[in-house]
C-alpha cells in the first residue's frame, strides 16, 4: 500500500462501530467524512463499506499523491478513497469469494448518506491513523 502512515487497528467487531469502539475513539468523525460502498455477489451476497473521517481521507489521499492536505481537492480525497476501497476489496475478494467462479465485485460508488446496512451478519475494522480514522465494514445480505 502506498500509504506510509501507520495503521493502528482500534477494534474488530461484529457489532456496530458505534457500540464497540473504545470510548477514546470518536467514531462520529467517520460519518462526516468520505465513504465508498461496493456490493459483492456470488454464492455469498453483501456489501463492503470503506469510510474515513475528513482527516483520515486527507491523510490517505495525501500519502497516495504525495501532496500536502492543503493542496488536495475534495475530488482528490474522494477519488483516493474510492481507489482504496477498490484495492481493499481486491484483497478481500479471494477470502470472500474463495473458489466461487461467479463471485463479482461492483465498481465503488460514493456514499451519499450513511448506509442502511443489515447488521445481522458481518463485521468491521476500525483503524486509527496518525491523523484521522478509517473503517472497513463487510456485511452479508
Amino acid at each position, binding site marked *: *500500500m*502506498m500509504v506510509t502512515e501507520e495503521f493502528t487497528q482500534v477494534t474488530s467487531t461484529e457489532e456496530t462501530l458505534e457500540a464497540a469502539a473504545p470510548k477514546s475513539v470518536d467514531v462520529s468523525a467517520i460519518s462526516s467524512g468520505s465513504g465508498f460502498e461496493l456490493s459483492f455477489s456470488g454464492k455469498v451476497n453483501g456489501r463492503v463499506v470503506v469510510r474515513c473521517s475528513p482527516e483520515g481521507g486527507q491523510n490517505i*489521499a495525501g500519502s*497516495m*499523491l*504525495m501532496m500536502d492536505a492543503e493542496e488536495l481537492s475534495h*475530488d*482528490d480525497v474522494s*477519488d*483516493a478513497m*474510492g*481507489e482504496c476501497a*477498490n*484495492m481493499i*476489496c*481486491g*484483497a478481500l*475478494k*479471494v477470502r470472500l*469469494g474463495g473458489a466461487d*467462479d461467479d463471485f463479482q*465485485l461492483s*465498481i465503488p460508488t460514493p456514499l451519499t448518506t450513511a448506509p442502511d446496512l443489515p447488521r445481522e451478519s458481518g463485521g468491521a475494522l476500525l483503524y486509527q491513523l496518525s491523523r484521522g480514522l478509517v473503517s472497513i465494514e463487510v456485511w452479508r445480505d
Partner: protein
Amino acid sequence: MSLKVLLVDDSAVMRKMVTRTLRQAGIDLGEVLEAANGIEALEVLTNQVVDLILCDWNMPEMDGLTFLKEARKQYQTPVVMLTTESSQEKISEAMAAGANAYVSKPFTPEKIGTSLSQVLGS
C-alpha cells in the same frame, strides 16, 4: 528513448499515482496520455501512436478486458493490466486476450519496473 504511454483508468488519482510510480521506477517517460475508460482509450489510439498501454480492469462504459480485446483487433502495442483483479482465472483471461503482462494493485515502483522491463525488453 522516452516512452509515450497511454494510461487507462477511471480513477484520476490512480492515473497520477501510476505516472509518479513509473518515474520512480526509472522509466524514461515522454508524453503521458490518459483515458478514463476503454472507449476513450480506443479514441486516443485512433489518433495517437503510443509505445505502451497501462490499463485497469474495472471501469465504467467499457472495462479493461473488453478494451483489450477491441484494441488487439487493430494494435499490437504492449499492454500491461494494472488491476485489483488478482485471481488466476482473471490473469489467464487477460493474457489469453492479448495482455503482455499483469500487475496487481497495490504495486511498488520495483514491481512495475520489473514488469515493464520484461515487456519492453530493456
